């Protein structure tokens, strides 16, 4: 490179900029040292109090970090499990850790670098905001589920209904996402997803009434605490089965996979999304799965009830892990059912089953056989 007459200026300019940058960084660190140390000492002063601090609960357990970690492992587990059942290997080669567990990080990096394509005639504000709202609505229910009587971020007196409010929000977001893509196949795909999710809301609510009846409260902490002697899945097994099936339908898992079906309607309502919006949708769906699995555990599997050698939160984590494993194993075991079979199963088979279970519980209560629960 030839020395231009302005080369000397650039050299001094670079030196001056470096000095200014280092000096300002040093000044910033010096200024922030006091407040930073006070924040850290506030958290470290009393580790016991730190572990039940609300900020810890929101950020680490059972909030962002824990839910994100379980979702991460669920994505990896789903691919690995399906692969093993199908006599394949699954993710294996990404990164140094064995088993391909870093595959998710590789996918994350790939998606972050992808171009975000916005269709030309689409409704741009709604197109961009729909994945954001899908992520928000999908991941907020994590806040409501208790992992023990102390580890609950939002202890709402009508917590169960607020959980279902987020279930009810989701079809609206789906409809906006499909419509704003300006693509007939996306729109039809979003309509199908909407029919599926709206239809299976009713068996979900009805079958969740059984634990409410047994525990006598809509507060999730109360429902979990009422299962100290017997798990509700043993008292109301039909409701548990209906609830689990409705969860699979709400999460668009197999066998209710029509909306995301790869072999029909391209990718359904997700067709026009690529890159980070797609990541928001998918990761939000997996965090939603963690929230629903935790809710199923609290409602039917006894919540944090377990033998005393482990803390209640650990029992909850173990049970949620088992439920998540069952949910992701459906990918390997079930074929996909048709749309009309799906809707008729929801309306004509699951709703009567849920009502039958509720009626049997009422009969049992009148006969006085449920006195052992109080």
């Amino acid at each position, binding site marked *: 490179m030839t020395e231009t007459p302005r080369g000397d200026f650039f050299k001094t300019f670079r030196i001056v900029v470096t000095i200014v940058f280092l000096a300002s960084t040093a000044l910033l660190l010096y200024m922030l040292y006091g407040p930073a140390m006070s924040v850290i000492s506030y958290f470290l002063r009393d580790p016991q109090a730190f572990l039940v601090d609300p900020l810890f609960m929101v950020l680490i357990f059972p909030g962002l970090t824990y839910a994100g970690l379980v979702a991460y492992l669920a994505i990896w587990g789903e691919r690995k499990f399906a692969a093993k059942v199908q006599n394949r290997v699954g993710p294996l080669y990404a990164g140094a850790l064995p088993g391909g567990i870093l595959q998710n990080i590789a996918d994350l990096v790939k998606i972050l670098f992808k171009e975000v394509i916005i269709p030309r005639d689409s409704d741009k504000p709604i197109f961009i905001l729909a994945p954001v709202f899908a992520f928000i609505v999908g991941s907020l229910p994590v806040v409501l589920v208790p992992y023990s009587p102390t580890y609950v971020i939002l202890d*709402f*007196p*009508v917590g169960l*209904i607020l959980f279902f*409010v987020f279930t009810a*929000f989701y079809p*609206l977001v789906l409809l*906006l996402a499909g*419509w704003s893509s300006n693509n007939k196949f996306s729109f039809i795909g979003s309509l199908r997803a909407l029919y599926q999710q709206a239809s299976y809301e009713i068996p979900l609510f009805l079958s969740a009434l059984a634990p409410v009846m047994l525990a006598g409260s*809509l507060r999730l902490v109360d429902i979990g605490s009422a299962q100290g002697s017997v798990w509700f899945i043993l008292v109301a097994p039909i409701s548990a089965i209906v609830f689990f099936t409705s969860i699979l339908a709400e999460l668009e898992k197999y066998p209710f996979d029509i909306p995301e079906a790869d072999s029909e309607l391209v990718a359904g309502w997700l067709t026009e999304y690529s890159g980070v919006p797609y990541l928001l949708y998918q990761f939000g769906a997996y965090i939603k799965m963690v929230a629903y699995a935790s809710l199923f555990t609290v409602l039917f599997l006894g919540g944090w009830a377990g033998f005393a050698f482990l803390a209640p939160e650990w029992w909850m984590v173990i049970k949620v892990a088992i439920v998540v494993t069952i949910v992701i194993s459906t990918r390997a075991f079930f074929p996909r059912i048709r749309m009309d079979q799906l809707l008729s199963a929801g309306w004509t088979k699951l709703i009567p089953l849920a009502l039958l279970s509720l009626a049997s519980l009422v009969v049992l209560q009148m006969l006085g056989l449920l006195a052992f629960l109080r």
Partner: protein
Amino acid sequence: MTRLDYLLAIAILAFTSLMALLALESKSLVYGAVSLSGFFLGLSLFFFELGLLYLGVFQLLVYVGAVSVLILFAVMVIGHTPRKPTVGRFGGLGFLGGLFIALAAVFAGLAMLFSFLDLAVDTILQSLIYIGPVVVLLAFAVLFRGEPRGRSSYRFEAFGVLGAFLIFGSFLGALSYLGSLSVFSGDVTFSMADVAQSLLGQYGLLMVVLGLLLASAAFGAVALAKKEKEEK
């Protein structure tokens, strides 16, 4: 109420009013429908603020979960209407502006009078709360034209603003009377058992009738929507 509670209440009021205005004045019907569901959300925040938790979640479930989807469906069926070119876009603005100034003066006078008679209230705050939303209303009405105009006057908007003023003015007397009542400002604990007892006990028959009504409304809507296909 503490200062933060007061600020939060004003913020929720501002958000909800903004959503209601956007629902009426936004250019496309779909944006209006989405703003309307935002309005329903804001209203449920009001219910949470009042301590009526079950009502809040019920409002969210029914309105944002179901009615919003219904409205959005209908709006998508109706689709984008072609916009006619606006003619005489600012004709009649003087009339509307004059109407606004006259009414706002009357309004301000009334607010001052009420606050003068009610010596225990904050004058400026009352005037702001009485006049503020009307100012915003009229600013939206004048600035954000949501409908195509083929004529040169704003008589519809004038009627609308007049009606809004009359409705709000008729509330003023009730509001100042309410200021002299002693209200129950203690804490209200939410009890689900009360709601359940009243819904299923005192209003049990009404619930059954309501269920029949909703079922018939659903049947009627489906029948209306299907009739076109059978005729063809």
